């Protein structure tokens, strides 16, 4: 006969307001096998937990049901409490009578009945629970950082400085990300490259960092502490060991008219190129799509002029497999493009702004490149269409952001600040020019941020107009901006020379595909989801994967850097121990019953099922059966549902436990 203890929580009044907890406790007492039942105001509080611990000992309990909130909230709490009283933690179950009952039903009678039934089902289940022991798995102390922007760089440096090896993977030919593209940064207006490039060089020189640029994640296998990551190193066509970075190949390349995406297509680059002069690594790649040699088989100039003989047209994509213990995802963001979107897309473009076809309507990043001293104009603000200095520039905020009708409801967070910065940079470079900003409201929470914004108005002459713009159109060489000033209640029309759009921050294209490879979740916009919005903001629900930077949501540089360091700290916490304890919710095979049909092996998403030979003492083969590697098993239980004879069982969710619950319906 079981001796189950049932503990009903009032949760202050959250539960007791709608559920008659006393009645539930009385009903629970009568369930066969229940030795003790009580109710208490706050079960999760210290006195509540002590009550439970005391009952375990005094009543000699061999199973516990805590009827309270969701097990997602406090299962760990109560399991720990039981454990400290000497009861195996897996003999504790939670009956969710708050989220699934008291909070969603108003009728006291109905809610009480439901709560009683939920408790009964869980009591029957817990009778079938077995003692389980945690599984320990070794930890590979090597981290993978995906994305070489400021967040990825910071995380990689922190982990590497701690003495652990880091593999940093970047899709582009150089690390640096968006920060390398910026001209100056708010709120201090220091030059972005000046603070960024030393960090890039640190990465390149760090003995603990292996850098894979021009590379992508092909596949991720394994689990926390034991990932096997396949990295595709795209063919660079240049041997990184031989190349000295002298740049002769780039100078001699006859194909020089390729728009440079690093400069937002304002500048040109050769077919063999580094995206920008301070690139790390400073090894060029051949853009095979635009290279004459790869298109027609003729040319080969770069190979001829290369002194060290580094140019290698025969290079192929390479797959590298790395053993990894923890993964930091820092894939960053991209900007909303106002162009026409494919039908059915949740994101709409901006027809009213010309769908991106007016050449002097540019986005914020393009303005950064114009303002950058290393940019295509050498830091002069010149408009793209005719290279003239614009005398009137209109800045539009919240383009895409906070615009549900355009498919995005969130605030992109950084635009208010960078637009304020843009007006200043513009004023510094075009002294007699006039900047106008259309804005909904200025969001400047951050150290020194509001002061910075006010400076743009008070000292740098920017005119802020509260209101929206309904239309932009080309008129001669001007762009007419039609908007409203809601403060004055009038229509405004400005003939601008250039318009800068603060377009929304979006996750990278293909962010969802990477998430699927990693087995992490993402929201409706494809931003990656953290395990808990407040308390676990840098961890994914998938153990061993951490988030840094704008891939999780719009962030400015200081936020990205702090989150990156936080993610690094999480990785280092994991690496501090040689072994990791895992929940023992894994599948086990009953050797006697298994008939080796290997349905389990066919359906296992983790490849955790192997074939095992059973031999007698003389070594003669008796039979072959399935075997589940507990370190690899993810605990989904798909094998058990697929096993015709139920010879494989998922601990914690056995047929006996589930059937007992169903029988109690």
């Amino acid at each position: 006969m079981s001796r189950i203890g049932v503990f009903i929580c009032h949760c202050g009044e959250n539960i007791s307001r709608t559920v008659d907890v006393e009645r539930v406790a009385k009903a629970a007492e009568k369930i066969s096998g229940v030795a003790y039942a009580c109710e208490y105001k706050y079960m999760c509080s210290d006195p509540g937990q002590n009550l439970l611990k005391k009952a375990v000992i005094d009543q000699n309990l061999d199973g516990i049901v805590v009827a309270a909130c969701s097990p997602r909230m406090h299962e760990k709490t109560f399991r720990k409490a039981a454990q400290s009283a000497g009861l195996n933690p897996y003999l504790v179950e939670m009956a969710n009578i708050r989220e699934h009952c008291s909070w969603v039903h108003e009728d006291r009678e109905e809610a009480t009945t439901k709560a009683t039934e939920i408790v009964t089902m869980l009591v029957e289940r817990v009778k079938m629970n077995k003692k389980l022991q945690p599984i320990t798995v070794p930890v590979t102390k090597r981290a993978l950082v995906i994305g070489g922007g400021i967040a990825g760089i910071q995380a990689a440096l922190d982990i590497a400085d701690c003495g652990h090896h880091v593999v940093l993977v970047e899709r582009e030919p150089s690390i640096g990300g968006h920060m390398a593209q910026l001209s100056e940064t708010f709120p201090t207006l220091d030059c972005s490259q000046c603070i960024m490039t030393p960090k890039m060089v640190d990465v390149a020189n760090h003995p603990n960092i292996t850098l894979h640029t021009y590379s992508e994640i092909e596949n991720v296998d394994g689990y926390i502490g034991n990932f096997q990551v396949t990295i595709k190193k795209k063919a660079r066509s240049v041997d990184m060991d031989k190349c000295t970075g002298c740049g002769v190949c780039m100078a001699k390349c006859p194909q020089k008219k390729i728009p440079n995406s690093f400069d937002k297509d304002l500048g040109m680059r050769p077919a063999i190129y580094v995206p920008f002069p301070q690139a790390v690594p400073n090894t060029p790649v051949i853009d095979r799509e635009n290279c004459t040699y790869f298109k027609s088989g003729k040319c080969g100039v770069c190979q001829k002029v290369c002194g060290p003989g580094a140019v290698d047209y025969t290079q192929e994509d390479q797959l590298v497999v790395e053993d990894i213990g923890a993964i930091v995802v820092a894939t960053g963001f991209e900007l909303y493009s106002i162009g026409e979107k494919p039908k059915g897309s949740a994101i709409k473009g901006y027809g009213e702004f010309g769908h991106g076809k007016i050449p002097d309507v540019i986005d914020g990043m393009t303005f950064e490149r114009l303002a950058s001293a290393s940019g295509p104009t050498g830091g002069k603000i010149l408009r793209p269409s005719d290279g003239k200095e614009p005398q009137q520039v209109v800045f539009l905020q919240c383009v895409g952001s906070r615009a549900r009708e355009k498919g995005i409801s969130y605030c992109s967070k950084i635009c208010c600040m960078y637009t304020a910065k843009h007006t200043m940079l513009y004023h510094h470079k075009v002294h007699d020019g006039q900047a106008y900003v259309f804005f909904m409201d200025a969001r400047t929470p951050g150290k020194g941020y509001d002061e910075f914004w006010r400076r743009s108005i008070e000292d740098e002459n920017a005119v802020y107009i509260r209101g929206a713009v309904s239309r932009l159109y080309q008129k001669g060489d001007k762009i007419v901006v039609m908007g409203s000033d809601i403060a004055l209640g009038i229509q405004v029309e400005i003939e601008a020379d250039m318009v800068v759009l603060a377009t929304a921050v979006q996750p990278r294209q293909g962010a969802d595909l990477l998430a699927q490879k990693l087995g992490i979740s993402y929201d409706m916009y494809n931003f990656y989801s953290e395990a808990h919005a407040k308390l676990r903001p840098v961890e994914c629900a998938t153990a061993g994967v951490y988030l840094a930077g704008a891939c999780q949501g719009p962030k400015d540089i200081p936020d990205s850097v702090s989150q990156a360091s936080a993610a690094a700290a999480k990785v280092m916490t994991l690496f501090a121990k040689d072994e990791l304890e895992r929940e023992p919710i894994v599948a086990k095979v009953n050797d006697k019953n298994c008939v080796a049909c290997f349905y389990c092996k066919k359906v296992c998403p983790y490849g955790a099922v192997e074939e095992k030979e059973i031999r007698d003492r003389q070594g003669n083969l008796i039979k072959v059966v399935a075997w589940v590697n507990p370190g690899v098993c993810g605990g989904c239980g798909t094998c058990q549902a697929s096993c015709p004879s139920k010879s494989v069982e998922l601990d914690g969710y056995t047929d006996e436990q589930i059937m007992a619950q169903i029988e109690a319906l």
Partner: protein
Amino acid sequence: MNNTKENTTPLVDNSYYEAVTTAIRSEARRVMESGEVSAVIGYKSGRRKGSAQPVIISDVSRIDELVFAPTCTNNLSLYLTKAKKEVSKKGKIAIVAKGCDLKALAGLMSESQLKRENLHLIGISCAGVHGSNVKPSEALSAATIARKCRECTVHVPEGVDCIAGTLPQLEQLSALESAELERLEAMSPAGRWAFWKEQFSRCIRCMACRQVCPFCYCEQCLCDRNRPQGVETTPRPAGNMGWHIVRAMHLAGRCAGCAECERSCPMDIPLNLLNRKMANELKELYGQEAGMQPQEKGPLATYKEDDDESFIK
């Protein structure tokens, strides 16, 4: 299931059976004498005139006992797995296989129960076999042929080591089983429930359908378990319904359509209707069906990301 209203003229003449029998014997003798196989699983004549029964021959001198007749209904693949487990341990075995039996063998290979290299397959060009409740001495005719054979698509096995006999042009018979399926499908859910309730209420849980099924090779059947008891074991209506649903579900995507379950059922429950229905559905849903070649993964052991989900909200 007897088709009493049908024509009793023989579908094939006797010389066909003689030719098949001769071909089986000569191939069996060849592989036995060369030592390639240690035994042959086939059919021999039974005591009643025209009847046949399975036989395992491991002695060359008994080869001439092998026959083929319309009464060779059994799916012999059973004797390689659960019925005679020790047989397959003896090394390479020759086995006589009709098209439907071959599908079962292929399925068993897909499920790691058999290895192709351990088998010598003597395929039969099969015109069909008797249905149940037919006198063994009767000739194979539209009236005596098994329902499954009326719409057989595997008269001639493929991928075997040799084929015994050649088939004459066969008469196209009406597809009674498919017609019955259509009749049931056209009914209301309540009508179908009434139909199956009546059928299953007769079930005496003798488990012949399970014992004769090449795919029911589990060491312990889920339906015999009592901790927990998923399916009631006594022949009460509730347990019967449970058993037949679980059986059909476990065979979905695997069943070879040999209809041995139906033939061996002492209560004449039309079990192959369920099997055929599930095979049809899986073919329609996922384009996969039991075939004469082993498949790496059956339809329920794999998935496609764009599988139909019109039924999911």
